[in-house]
């Protein structure tokens, strides 16, 4: 993993920890949906998107939300749109 991807990953994990402090990043399946893994509801996701929006400094259209449902999805999305 290159430096840029690693930074992106750290920012996404920090945003996740802001919503689910009990999360152990080592137990996270990077491909699986957050909702199924961590019982995210709509407010959790809104908080998560807000943390991402602040960490990367980019607007995230609501239509893009489905791309942010997993760790790998987030990394792919923000690698293309670096903040």
């Amino acid at each position, binding site marked *: 993993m290159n430096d840029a991807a690693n930074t992106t990953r750290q920012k996404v994990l920090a945003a996740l920890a802001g919503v689910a402090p*009990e999360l152990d990043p080592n137990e996270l399946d990077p491909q699986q949906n957050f909702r199924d893994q961590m019982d995210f*509801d*709509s*407010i959790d996701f*809104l*908080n998560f*998107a*807000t943390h991402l929006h602040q960490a990367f400094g980019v*607007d995230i259209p609501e239509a893009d939300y489905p791309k942010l449902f997993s760790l790998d999805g987030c990394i792919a999305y923000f690698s293309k749109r670096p903040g």
Partner: protein
Amino acid sequence: MPSLGAGMETGTLAQWLVQPGAHIKRGDLIAVVETQKGAIDVESFEAGTLTKFLVEPGTEVPVGTPLAVIDGAGETAGSEVVKPEPVAPIERPHVSPVARRRAQELGVDIEALAARTGGSVNLEDVEKAAGTPHKPAPVAPAGMRQAIAATMARSKREIPHYYLAATLDFSAVLNRLQTMNASLPVPERLVYGVLLVKAVALAAKRFPEFNGYWVDDHFEPSERVNVGVAISLREGGLVAPALHDADGKSLSILMREFLDLVNRVRAGHMRSSEIAEPTITVSSMGEQGVDSVYPIIYSPQVAIVGFGSIVEQPWVVSGKVVATRTITATLAADHRVSDGHRGALFLAYLRQLLEKPEAL
């Protein structure tokens, strides 16, 4: 010690949030009380100067026990009264309800721990401090489960429920949400639950026999519409605090209050008026993939509206079958107060509001 919900007999004063000498306004947060439902921030019913604590932190007392003396402005006003020193607000540690409870069990000083961790304390911090290994288990604390069991058993025993369900076209709500959210920054976007709350509030205002309390063998309708929202806690359990006066608030204000409420509740900062004052409740299952929910009324309320998950299904519009996103609303109401005919009118109005959501 205020009564924070039906069935509460005692509460433990966990922490004072003010110091003697503080000027208190009605509604100011003055103490944290530990109940079976978790920690609740208690608001003052009185205005004046807090002169004396009557209960020390850590003490369990029956509901109705005075916690402190607050002198009203009239009583202490006089030429000899010394103006009390302005009191610096106490920094509030951010402690999850389960962490607070566990700290009590393990004898960990939560304030000292919060000072070390920089203000935020979770279950793991508490167990580390106590030297106990962390066992991840998403099971509600025993007290919370008991409180839910007691409330629900009483409701099932005492309230003659009847249920009515209606599946409705939800696409107009979702389209409206999409349009509104397209021009809003991420933190201000709306979730559809807020439109459900507003619609139920307006229906409750129009049909007063679903909005209020059953007390002393009669129904007391409420002028205000305070919609309780069922919120699941990350570490297990359920609470249903109120969004006050939801019928008269805009969607953006309701959204801000809803977000604030959920985040505070999950951080262990629910307020006493929120837990004590809902007049009707909404329970939405979100994206859990259930078609419908048959909720139990929170005594002493007389109605609750449940919403299943959004389901895309064949739907007939003007004689043609189209794929449409739908949601099923279920009204559970108290037969001592209303009957199925009025319940059907309530649901029909709810359908009208949600299928033409411009009025919300």
